[in-house]
């Protein structure tokens, strides 16, 4: 990995590390403050034990992303709060479990002696049970903290920041270096956290420090707290640093390249008006973005008409005329969510048949209807989803009356390579995929408008345009600016050439005189 790749991102790396520390620190801290008293409470009431362990255990088995999505829906916020709640829930089990196990492990002889000498239950807990259970409890805290560091990487999906930001971005842009930039520090952090907690455990164990001279007393205890204190300082400093001015307009995006480009374009246009912008990109999918927008956590994000129709509105009618879909979606959004659709960017990111440029030239393929004579002798590569969906291959055959000689089910990531290598003659692609220019492929025009339209446009809270009238004007200039080919090329710059999204967008807007 080139050094400048890291040095360029060092300030952000520090910021993300701090965010990560804050997420794990607060959640583990809360889990300790709640879990230990709860563990103590349960240890007195054994009938509560199966109940509580069952409950916390069930929470533990909920997949992290599902948990985040659920909390998002429940409290209607993206960002740090739902992330911390989720992390705390995950951290609770090991802490409660180890507290109960540790307290139960104290031998009855010892308890009898404690009781027999006249200790009150409180004194017995403080002087005997807790100190004896401490190593087990500390082990639970360590487990919880390490789990937290790991799961916190997922918090980026709901805009909570942390090292997961790099991982998400790396996944969206298919950039391994970015993934490593998030994953490696997070793994190192987990090791360090584990070390810091072991150090505290060492410090609390007076007996182990007994023969260490100066370290046997208070200085040793203080020294043992130092590694943990370092984490607090870094995390705390991070919070102060972050407490700077918030952006006036909050822009979100889903987690793939095209969305990042479009969102960045919105951001740069709005910044050009002098307003400040907060980028809350890379949110975990359509539902997260929509919830965040509806709840006012973000002000806008780019959405596709077809996605809005099926995934959000869950509409029964599926018109294929682009204008009709756009009109339906914008009407319903305003009515149901008080959200506005601006004019589309221009391109349509939908299913499209792709062949190599040579094949297109040789056989004169420009439109889907041109396939009629060639199809019986062609080998097609489809995703299994396209092969199955009623509005996929089955519907297509009926609409065009065209059937391919042979159909292979391929993984989306392998499909393009299979076409390039000549293993198949035609594939079902997405019309703005960066591999279309990258692999020199040709898209066939859907002349019977069979595929549902997926035109991208900014969706925003109706209030934003009233509050900042200049935003409407700035974004209006983007309408119709990007056709399919342009979007393919922009995706190509970011995906294949691995260029910075911000730079690609700036260059594009300058080229358009904006």
């Amino acid at each position, binding site marked *: 990995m080139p050094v400048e790749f890291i040095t360029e991102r060092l300030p952000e790396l520090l910021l993300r590390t701090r965010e990560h520390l804050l997420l794990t620190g607060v959640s583990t801290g809360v889990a300790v403050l709640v879990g230990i008293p709860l563990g103590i409470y349960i240890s007195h009431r054994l009938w509560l034990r199966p109940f509580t362990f069952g409950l916390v255990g069930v929470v533990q088995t909920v997949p992290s992303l599902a948990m985040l999505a659920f909390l998002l829906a429940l409290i209607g916020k993206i960002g740090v709060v739902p992330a911390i709640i989720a992390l705390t829930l995950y951290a609770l089990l090991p802490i409660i479990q180890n507290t109960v196990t540790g307290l139960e492990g104290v031998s009855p002889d010892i308890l009898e002696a404690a009781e027999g000498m*006249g200790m009150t239950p409180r004194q017995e807990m403080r002087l005997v049970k807790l100190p004896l259970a401490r190593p087990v409890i500390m082990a639970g805290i360590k487990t919880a903290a390490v789990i937290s560091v790991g799961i916190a990487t997922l918090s980026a999906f709901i805009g909570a920041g942390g090292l997961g930001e790099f991982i998400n971005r790396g996944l969206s842009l298919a950039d391994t270096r970015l993934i490593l930039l998030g994953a490696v520090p997070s793994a190192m952090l987990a090791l360090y956290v584990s070390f810091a907690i072991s150090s505290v455990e060492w410090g609390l164990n007076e007996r182990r420090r007994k023969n260490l001279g100066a370290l046997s007393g208070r200085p040793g205890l203080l020294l043992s707290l130092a590694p943990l204190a370092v984490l607090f300082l870094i995390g705390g400093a991070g919070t102060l640093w972050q407490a700077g001015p918030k952006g006036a307009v909050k822009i979100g995006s889903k987690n793939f390249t095209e969305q990042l480009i479009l969102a960045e374009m919105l951001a740069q246009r709005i910044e050009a008006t002098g307003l400040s912008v907060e980028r809350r990109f890379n949110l975990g999918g359509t539902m997260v973005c929509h919830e965040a927008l509806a709840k006012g956590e973000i002000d806008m994000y780019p959405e596709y008409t077809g996605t809005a129709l099926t995934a959000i509105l869950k509409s029964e009618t599926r018109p294929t005329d682009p204008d009709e879909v756009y009109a339906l979606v914008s009407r319903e959004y305003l009515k149901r969510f008080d959200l506005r659709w601006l004019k589309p960017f221009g391109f349509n990111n939908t299913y499209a048949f792709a062949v190599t440029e040579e094949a297109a030239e040789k056989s004169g393929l420009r439109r889907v209807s041109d396939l009629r004579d060639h199809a019986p002798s062609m080998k097609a590569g489809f995703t299994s989803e396209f092969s199955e969906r009623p509005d996929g291959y089955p519907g297509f055959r009926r609409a065009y009356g065209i059937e391919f000689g042979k159909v292979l089910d391929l993984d989306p990531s392998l499909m393009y390579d299979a076409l390039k290598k000549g293993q198949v003659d035609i594939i079902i692609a997405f019309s703005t995929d960066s591999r279309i220019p990258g692999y020199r492929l040709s898209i066939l025009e859907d002349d019977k408008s069979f595929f549902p339209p997926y035109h991208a446009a900014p969706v925003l809270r109706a209030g934003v345009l009233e509050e900042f009238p200049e935003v409407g004007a700035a974004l209006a200039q983007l309408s119709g600016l990007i056709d399919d080919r342009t979007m393919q090329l922009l995706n190509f710059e970011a995906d294949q050439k691995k260029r910075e999204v911000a730079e690609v967008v700036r260059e594009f807007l300058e080229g358009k005189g904006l």
Partner: protein
Amino acid sequence: MEKAIELIDVRKHFNGTHAVRGVSFEVLDGETLVLLGSSGCGKTTILKMINRLIEPSSGVIRINGKDILGQDPIEVRRSIGYAIQGIGLFPHMSIADNVSVVLRLKGWPEDKKRDRTGEVLDMVGLEPETFGPRYPDELSGGQQQRAGVARALAADPAILLMDEPFGALDAVTRNVLQQELLKLKQTIKKTIVFVTHDIFEAFTLADRIAVLHEGRLQQIGTKEEIISAPKTEFVKDLLLRPIEQLKDFKEAH
């Protein structure tokens, strides 16, 4: 002489098993009473009822003439020294801390605590400088037993309950500790209830002996009274058994 402890028709059953079936006796001020009986006869149960670790099913227990059931159990326990069967030292505390923890509960100042801890460790023959800073697992079994006794003595309670404190020891060490306890008895003048199943230990230490069998008191008296006039078959048997055993052993060789 005053009655320090008084049990009147005390019974205890644990859902179904009758551990103690109507026991009455008294322990006089400064007297050592040994509860003697075989395993499971209810000795520990009786002891624990005296410091309210176990509540009797029925009957009355008085200490210095006052019914303990009307008193705060924590207060009752703090006024009684208790050396448990098994040792029960706190493994996370040094021997000195183990001994002084009772004083800590009573809120003694630091320097008085330190002095008293040294004093009782000396009493049980543990050199405070050497053994005070050590942890329980750094002591031999016998030394741990001594530390347990020191802990029971620490707050200078008028009453001492000792449940087979020398149980796990070899005969020689056991004898040494018995002799030391006898000496200690002269100097500290305490009311002691001492539990054992070893008849010779009972004879060595007791002012009076209470023989128990299956939760019932068989006989109570000095060792002379018991030897000269055993009241029940069980007591007779108890006295004869060592002699029988010796005889069997001789015949076998």
